[in-house]
């Protein structure tokens, strides 16, 4: 029996009707209609650890690298090691011993950055997730073959497979057997079921209890303002006003209305994944763009560029087309980008 089956048996009683299960009222069976096979396959794209649901296809490390550089590297780095947009997917720190034992030893070491590949026990997960959700700004645009290639490339970056490896629906099972952390998950806990047994319980002592009451950790004074001025984050009248944590002379300049509106439009339209106010991210900073395009005459050009994308103005990295940007947001963004430096 698989470990899951044993785990499930712990809780599986016969599924009987419980307190607020409702009886099916008359006429209810007319609500809802049968889904067509085509409809089910359009949405049911999940792949289970036993590879149920996996579409046929294949891709090699080289094809994967090509897709990766074009569609993934801008956020995850050429080698999946970037920490800019998300935590690193792979760093070259998985060992032969890890692959042999199926447990990544360095997960015990607090000094080691936990990457995706160090944690993921199941190959199906990488396949399923990339197919359903990546690239982040254009999910569900990859073909099955592209996903096989991308997974092969990621495994290659982690030294799980060689440079000439081809991943396909026919060798997923044997590739799973090399997943570095395949034995790293535990179901030995009480948090799956409402009826599960807790692993820790508090004390019921109420008088003269022996507990440590020395302060072992608190925020250092310099960090008190790291979340902004606390006095402005709580009700400023009533019994508990906030502590004033802003250091004199550090007052942030009041941002103008136009800029605030645009920030909402920017994050809502998916721009802030690649652009930030100051400093280059995947794309140039908005400060740099605003300096370069101050003036109404640039509006039409920017509008076009945002909708259709393009490369070469700031470097070789392309900006993807952003056709889904809402009209109002686009108008605001362009007005703001061309409004000149604050």
């Amino acid at each position: 029996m698989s470990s899951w089956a044993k785990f499930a048996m712990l809780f599986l009683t016969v599924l009987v009707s419980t307190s607020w299960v409702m009886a099916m009222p008359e006429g209810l069976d007319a609500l809802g209609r049968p889904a067509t096979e085509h409809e089910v396959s359009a949405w049911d794209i999940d792949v289970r650890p036993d590879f149920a649901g996996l579409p046929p296809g294949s891709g090699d490390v080289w094809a994967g690298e090509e897709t990766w550089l074009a569609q993934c590297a801008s956020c995850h780095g050429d080698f999946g090691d970037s920490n800019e947009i998300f935590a690193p997917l792979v760093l070259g720190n998985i060992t032969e011993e890890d692959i042999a034992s199926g447990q990544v030893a360095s997960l015990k070491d607090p000094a080691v950055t936990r990457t995706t590949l160090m944690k993921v026990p199941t190959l199906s997960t990488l396949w399923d997730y990339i197919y359903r959700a990546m690239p982040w700004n254009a999910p569900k645009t990859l073909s099955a073959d592209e996903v096989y290639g991308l997974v092969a490339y990621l495994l290659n970056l982690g030294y799980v497979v060689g440079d000439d490896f081809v991943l396909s629906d026919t060798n997923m099972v044997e590739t799973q057997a090399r997943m570095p952390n395949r034995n790293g998950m535990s179901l030995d806990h009480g948090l799956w079921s409402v009826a599960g047994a807790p692993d820790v319980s508090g004390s019921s002592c109420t008088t003269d209890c022996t507990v440590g009451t020395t302060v072992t950790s608190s925020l250092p004074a310099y960090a008190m303002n790291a979340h902004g001025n606390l006095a402005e984050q709580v009700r400023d009248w009533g019994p508990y006003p906030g502590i004033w944590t802003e250091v004199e002379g550090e007052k942030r300049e009041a941002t103008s209305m136009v800029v605030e509106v645009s920030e909402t439009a920017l994050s809502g339209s998916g721009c802030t994944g690649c652009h930030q106010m100051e400093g280059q991210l995947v794309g140039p900073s908005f400060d740099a763009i605003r300096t370069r395009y101050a003036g109404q005459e640039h509006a039409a050009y920017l509008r076009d560029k945002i909708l259709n994308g393009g490369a070469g103005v700031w470097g070789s990295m392309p900006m993807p087309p952003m056709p889904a940007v809402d009209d109002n947001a686009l108008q605001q963004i362009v007005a703001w980008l061309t409004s000149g430096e604050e």
Partner: protein
Amino acid sequence: MALDAEQGQLQPAPESFLAKDLVEDISRDGIDPARRKLLQNALAAAAAAAAAAASMVAPSLMADDDPDIVNLPSWTRSLGKPVVANPYGQPSPYEANIVRRQSPGLTRTDQSSVSFTPLQNLFGMITPSGLHFERHHQGWVDIDPRRHRLMINGLVETPLVFTMEELLRMPSVSRIHFLECGANTGLEWGNVAVPTVQYSHGMLSASEFTGVPVSLLLDRAGFDRQRATVLLAEGADGSSMTRTINLENALDDAMVAYGQNGEMLRPENGYPLRLVVPGVQGVSWVKWLRRLEVGDAPWATKDEVAHYVDLMPDGTHRQYTSIQEAKSVITAPSGGQKLLKQGYYDITGLAWSGRGTVEKVEVSVDGGRNWRPARLEKPLLPKALTRFHFDWVWQGDEVLLQSRVTDRTGYTQPSRAQLIEARGTRSIYHNNAIQTWRISGDGEVHNVQLG
């Protein structure tokens, strides 16, 4: 304290005392000398009336008088605003500080990110919908309810599709439940990292949800009671978030919800449809729900293997940790606030348990050495928030405030020391340790950990 600015201020409404046709003339033709004369007369008359009124409402102030009582404020002496000035009502401008906030530097992008509920200033057991915390993995979306569908497939006799119209026609239930992210208080495993309860516990909200019981929908589809053990929930947004749900528990009290606090769900909370899995961590309450699949083995989705797994000291991860165990926190006074005076205070906070109903809450003002029971606000509902109160007099001394909940199963919230002894400090998720607030002699309240 009186606001001097308000004293004796009179604000004549410029147009109310002008003849209506004069106003219309002026706005059409501008002001010519003849009309200017009329206007001056009207203004002079209004000024005289205002002066007379001022002498009536501003009698001389005696030494012990509160000017806010004796000098009638402007709102007592003026015409208020009309109905539907705000077609959708807004909080008072004096409450502008009480909003959701991000923790700077916590996430690298704003779409895979979190905003926290301002627990420090809320009352009762319900979170206003606009202050419900947010956690998105790939941004939030505005879904057209006419084009939204719910599909049920997998181990069922007939895979089914429902429109929103059909779901709103079905028998519905309304239930109050808390919704807590599994990573709530996750920043505090190793040491104190954040200043206020908003950031330490604000991935917690509670609403009255309205929707259709999952059991009814699965019955309608004719699910396979012999083989089924799990349910996959999937969202309609770009991330198409998927999570494996414990079917036995879901048949008890899970629902497919469209209502939140009497209105439709907010888009950030899954409009028009989300899964409600009482007692279970927020990530399983899949938003923008498009599909439920009945299965016989879990799916090990990305957010069940790479995240929402709890790292133990031996290097293994606990997988499918779902239930939010009993937890409580004092919300006022709490970190970042300041007590201005000595004397009576109503210490208040929240307690909840993913395994059912809160049995009791105890409060300690000496760091856990001595505990006394708190008063629980009714009703005590399963897998909902319970508001507690504790009468207390502050004498200006240093205080270590804590609260501790026990639920109906007999489980008591652990201290931080007890929790990390079992789980270490790196698991990120399911930190339900007792929280300590230190009040210093000057009344400032700080987040601290004890040892």
